[in-house]
């Protein structure tokens, strides 16, 4: 059974963890987050309530989703370069539910080193993105052509919980595909969620060799 690690137990991590907990074919699900619940999280992290303010997100979410088909456990720490080998030691695939570019680079470097896939997710304002990054396929830099450490984040901008819900659903579809079919490095697909499209859209990378050598 696959071990899925979810990095971030916030707006995207909440519904991803919910969806995972209802599957029957996974090893216990790991939730990694060192952050605590704040009042401003409640409108889009709806497994948290007022009484959870100040409590660790990963611990609280694991407790809230207990009793589903698959148990969850919490790693109440921020993922960093120095703890990634320990925290992700068991992971077969990583779900990015951070809202932070640096944490994504940590995940990506781990994924390159161990030749494992991970699923990138982001949401800001009314737009969301999701893509699975398979070993040998396009990396973050291939997709976004940036070395900047600050990519799209939802710090200052508004965001809606329904958008993060849709992104989480797309991430879980990408996970479903991987569980059924394995990696497909020649078919990178970036999914865009934007209400102006009417439904979500995708961009295909086509066959693309990443030349960034694990330094995306």
């Amino acid at each position: 059974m696959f071990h899925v690690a979810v990095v971030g137990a916030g707006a995207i991590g909440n519904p991803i963890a919910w969806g995972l907990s209802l599957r029957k074919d996974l090893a216990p699900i790991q939730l990694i987050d060192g952050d605590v619940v704040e009042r401003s999280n409640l409108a889009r992290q709806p497994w948290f309530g007022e009484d959870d303010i100040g409590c660790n997100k990963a611990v609280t979410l694991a407790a809230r989703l207990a009793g589903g088909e698959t148990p969850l456990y919490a790693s109440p720490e921020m993922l960093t370069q120095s703890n990634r080998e320990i925290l992700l030691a068991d992971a077969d695939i990583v779900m990015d539910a951070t809202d932070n570019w640096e944490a994504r680079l940590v995940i990506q470097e781990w994924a390159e080193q161990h030749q494992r896939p991970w699923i990138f997710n982001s949401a800001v304002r009314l737009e969301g993105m999701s893509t699975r990054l398979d070993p040998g396929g396009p990396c973050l830099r291939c997709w976004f052509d940036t070395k900047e450490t600050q990519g799209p984040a939802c710090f200052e901008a508004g965001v809606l919980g329904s958008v993060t819900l849709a992104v989480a659903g797309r991430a879980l579809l990408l996970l479903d595909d991987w569980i059924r079919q394995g990696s497909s490095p020649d078919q990178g697909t970036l999914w865009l969620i934007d209400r102006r499209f009417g439904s979500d859209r995708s961009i295909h990378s086509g066959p693309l060799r990443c030349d960034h050598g694990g330094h995306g």
Partner: protein
Amino acid sequence: MVDMDDRVIEQYSRQILLDQIGYDGQTRILAATVRVQGPDGPPRDLLVRYLSAMGFGVQVGTNLSGYFEIACQDAIWTMEIGGGRSQFMVDAGALLTEIALTLAQGE
């Protein structure tokens, strides 16, 4: 219309920051009650959970099967059941975005 105190503003700050919602839109959301009808189970619970978190008052009904209906006064949205849980999350997210933006705009 109710005035939002500081705690309420903080709770919905990320929605208020959206141009399409703003302070007035969030006030309308907090004043609105939506009725969610459809079969019992995790999908309906998910719709109710997200609508409540956004600030809507929510009433739940079970007298529909085969689809979900979300209504607020004269406005009605429906959603088919099927396609698996992950696809339901994608579709529910899109529908709830439309509902929130529509009801935030008011008349």
